[in-house]
């Protein structure tokens, strides 16, 4: 057995006996994301659907003044609820999602054929109320348009005189690209899984060995240090690959648990998608393993390494966060940037657009180049005298 395989098998075997590493690599890392995601998705979807279909109750101030308006609300499934005394306060305190206030001179103005004011009081920063607000607003606007048309007809005019321009929506989103919007954070989950899967191993194999003072005896063996490093990196990569495969498999079951058809979206997370994701992530697996080892090598203890790595964990969030704040139009060079490239690629796969050969090559080339650099830096670190001295 050569040194590389000896190191590799020893690290894999030793860590298979460590419950913390196993739980992180095989359970928390890969499964937490999908489970959390499916649960949140279901709660959200069901709430939205419930609001859109079911009759809702909205407090109306001055309901007795406008029976025709109240009838229009009712026919759209909105019941005029009990009056509240202070509507602004009620909305602010979340006692009501939205309150309608009818101006006191409604009857007078209506009879004269003048325009009347109907106030819709809501808080746009309360996202949970948005569906209700949109529904109420829609009903009010429809009512206004219908009544307006009636008045024009009564005066012998065509309603089209008042609306010279009609907006016709032609949304080009496909049911699959709409789902990509909802799943745009998916790349981050995959990166996080890879990170978590290898993290405890990376700490254990460098900072941990150092803390337990086993690095010095290890380096006394007649084996070049880069061979030892190679064996360790291979072990870390093995664990993160398994994490990633589990995560991809878990996500592929998501369409069964999410009522996609009710949302009008198509979610394709099947074998082809999974295989392409794994291919895109390959350079990241090596890159992260090397980076984690490098950072851990700077730490004197397990705990210190853990602290550093949790800071390092923020980096993979950046591209996802950036893309959600500033939606970029993908340029070819972006695919060559590790993390960003994977992010763009996976979102593209979700949209059902597929990924071109050029993009794939850029993604892999950029990623592997960065990984090679990180491995080289770690190898340098491994050669330093300081590394082996524990105390």
């Amino acid at each position, binding site marked *: *057995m*050569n*040194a590389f395989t*000896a*190191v590799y098998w*020893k690290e894999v*075997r*030793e*860590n298979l*006996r*460590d419950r913390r590493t196993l739980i992180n690599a095989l359970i928390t890392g890969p499964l937490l994301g999908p489970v959390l995601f499916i649960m949140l998705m279901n709660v959200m979807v069901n709430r939205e659907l419930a609001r859109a279909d079911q009759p809702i109750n909205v407090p109306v101030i001055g309901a007795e003044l406008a029976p025709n308006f109240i009838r229009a609300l009712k026919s759209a499934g909105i019941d005029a609820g009990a009056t509240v005394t202070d509507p602004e306060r009620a909305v602010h305190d979340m006692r009501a999602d939205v309150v309608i206030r009818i101006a006191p001179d409604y009857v007078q103005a209506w009879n004269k054929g003048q325009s009347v004011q109907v106030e819709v009081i809501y808080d746009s920063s309360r996202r949970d109320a948005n569906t209700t607000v949109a529904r109420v607003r829609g009903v009010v606007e429809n009512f206004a348009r219908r009544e307006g048309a009636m008045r024009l007809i009564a005066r012998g005019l065509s309603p089209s005189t008042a609306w010279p321009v009609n907006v016709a929506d032609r949304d080009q989103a496909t049911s699959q690209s709409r789902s990509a919007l909802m799943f745009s954070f998916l790349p981050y989950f995959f990166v996080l899984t890879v990170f978590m899967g290898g993290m405890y191993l990376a700490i254990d194999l460098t900072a941990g*060995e150092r803390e*337990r*003072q*086993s*690095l*010095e*005896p*290890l*380096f*006394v*063996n*007649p*084996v*070049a240090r880069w061979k030892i490093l190679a064996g360790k990196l291979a072990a870390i990569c093995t664990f993160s690959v398994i994490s990633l495969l589990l995560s991809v498999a878990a996500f592929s079951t998501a369409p069964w648990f999410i009522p996609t058809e009710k949302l009008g979206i198509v979610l394709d997370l099947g074998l082809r998608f999974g295989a392409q994701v794994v291919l895109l992530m390959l350079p990241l697996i090596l890159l992260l393993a090397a980076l984690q080892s490098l950072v851990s090598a700077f730490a004197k203890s397990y705990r210190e390494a853990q602290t550093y790595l949790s800071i390092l964990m923020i980096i993979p969030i950046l591209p996802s966060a950036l893309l959600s704040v500033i939606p970029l139009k993908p340029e070819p060079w972006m695919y060559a940037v590790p993390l960003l490239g994977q992010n763009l690629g996976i979102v593209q796969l979700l949209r059902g657009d597929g990924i071109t050969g050029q993009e794939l090559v850029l993604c892999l080339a950029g990623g592997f180049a960065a990984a090679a650099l990180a491995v080289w830096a770690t190898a340098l670190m491994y050669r330093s*005298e300081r590394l*082996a*001295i*524990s*105390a």
Partner: protein
Amino acid sequence: MIEVKDLRKAFGAVKAVDGVSFTARDGEITGLLGPNGAGKTTTLRMLYTLMKPDTGQVLVDGVDPADDPVAVRRRLGVLPDARGLYKRLTASENITYFGRLQGMSETEIARRREALIDALEMRDIATRRTEGFSQGQRVKTAIARALVHDPRNVLLDEPTNGLDVMATRAMRRFMHQLKAEGRCVLFSSHIMQEVAALCDRIVVIAHGTVVADDTPSALLEKTGETSLEEAFVKIIGTDEGLAA
């Protein structure tokens, strides 16, 4: 055989080792005696190629680590100051791992491992995971894995540190056995009794330099003392950092 010629190593302004020369011969036990912080561990670390000397030369069976560190490490069996074992592996697995790193065949590893387990009287702990081992059990395992490749030269850094009386006696017996097998045994200690009891040759180190290098009887003669203990104190100039 290990030859050390004018070895020097500084950490910043601190001269940890400042001109150490001595020779440790085959079939002899050579003791490096010195108070804590005298530079014993640093000297040994340079011998087993973990550190590079600033100046000076080391020869292990005539091979210079500066030319071929891997060949030197192959000729050495080292019990470093850091005894760290893999606590999720059994004592046997710890030994086997080092055998594989030495590039030995599986049958050879098994033969040597079993022989060492018997020689070190550790049969009862061989298949136990090393987590929770006593200090003595840990040292035994660390020595077994250091000697799995049957090295001609054995370096032991404070081998009896933290051991109880029984374990210390067993360790001394084992070192005599290594000597009887014709190996070159070099060990460091700050315990005068131990060096006196074991060594054919004593190298006394203080403040990074060799202050005496002789057989026990010659040391007594030179200093005019009747006990080695008094002789050491006289040579070093103080008894600070030494243990009887």
